[in-house]
């Protein structure tokens, strides 16, 4: 029962961290934040859980095979937004063509949210992948060897 405190804390904090990550993700327009920061925070929630409860349990929640898909999908969402604007007549990443008839540049908002989602997904997947790659090499220390 040595790390009861650790495990209870991690369980308590896990959901708020994810919530905070979502907050940071969507408030990049109005405060410090954005895709990269949110992705790192999201990944850190899972990494924290893996540190406290073991890599196996984390890998049951997020299987390693999901992560390359996450990385690729994130990049594709971003590039896809750019290609979307290309196909609709604007320059690459010209967000205004997403909503051409808006007076307060709604296209900019939509475009930014889309690309930041792509960035957040890609970064979260990448950070988690890095952790899995490093942690998965050494055998986990036994509970009583702390």
């Amino acid at each position, binding site marked *: 029962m040595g790390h009861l405190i650790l495990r209870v804390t991690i369980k308590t904090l896990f959901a708020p961290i994810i919530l905070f990550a979502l907050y940071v993700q969507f408030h990049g327009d109005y405060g*410090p934040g954005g*895709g*990269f920061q949110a*992705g790192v925070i999201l990944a850190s929630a899972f990494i924290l859980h893996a540190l406290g409860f073991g890599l196996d349990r984390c890998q049951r929640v997020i299987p390693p095979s999901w992560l390359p898909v996450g990385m690729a999908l994130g990049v594709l969402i971003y*590039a896809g937004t750019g290609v979307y604007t290309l196909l609709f007549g604007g320059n690459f990443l010209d967000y205004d063509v997403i909503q051409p008839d808006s007076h307060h540049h709604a296209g*900019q908002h939509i475009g930014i949210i889309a690309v930041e989602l*792509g960035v957040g997904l890609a970064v979260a997947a990448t950070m988690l992948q*890095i952790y899995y790659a*490093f942690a998965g*090499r050494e055998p986990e220390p036994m509970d009583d060897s702390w």
Partner: protein
Amino acid sequence: MIEFILARYNYWIVIALMMTGLYIVFSRGNLVKTLIGLNLFQTSVFIFYITMGKVFGGTAPILLGGHAEEGHGEEHGGDHAESTHGTAYGEHEDSYASDPLHEGGAVNTIEETHAELSPGESLHTAPEGAVNELARAETPAGDVAKAALDHGTEILYSNPLPHVLILTAIVVGVATTAVGLSLAVRIREAYGTVEEDRLEAIDNQDDRAEVLV
């Protein structure tokens, strides 16, 4: 003379960190120490950029309450940092011109440039493989700046562009550290050590063994 040194304290810190980082990289430590030194070196560059963007009396470049709402109604839903920027740099000019210790030529040019064209805000983030550029040009500075002046609220913002450049550089640094540490782990598995002198000795042994073949 003392004032000369003290007024540029941020540059001295940058130089100190930079040299420390480079020394750690060059000195014969182990691979992980080299990467830490590299990180320290990159951190000094971050500090350099951030202090470069700081405006005396300027706050964080996020639109504060009044501007955000009234600006939104106008036309650009993004940020109006640029419009208040016009005013901001007017202020900037005064505060810097009154500082006699600053390097004359360089600073004045910034002021003149900025009075005319505020640099656009570019959001650079570079997750693995993706290149993200977003550049926003200035809005017609007139309307909102006038509104700000009418309300008597002149808010000074720091320059947001270096912040964004640093975000990019930080991401690049993270990726570099990740790749470097992965290489260190692989080297540890392949060679059994991460000490640089041992590695060099083993590599030289391999070279010599090859020649004899």
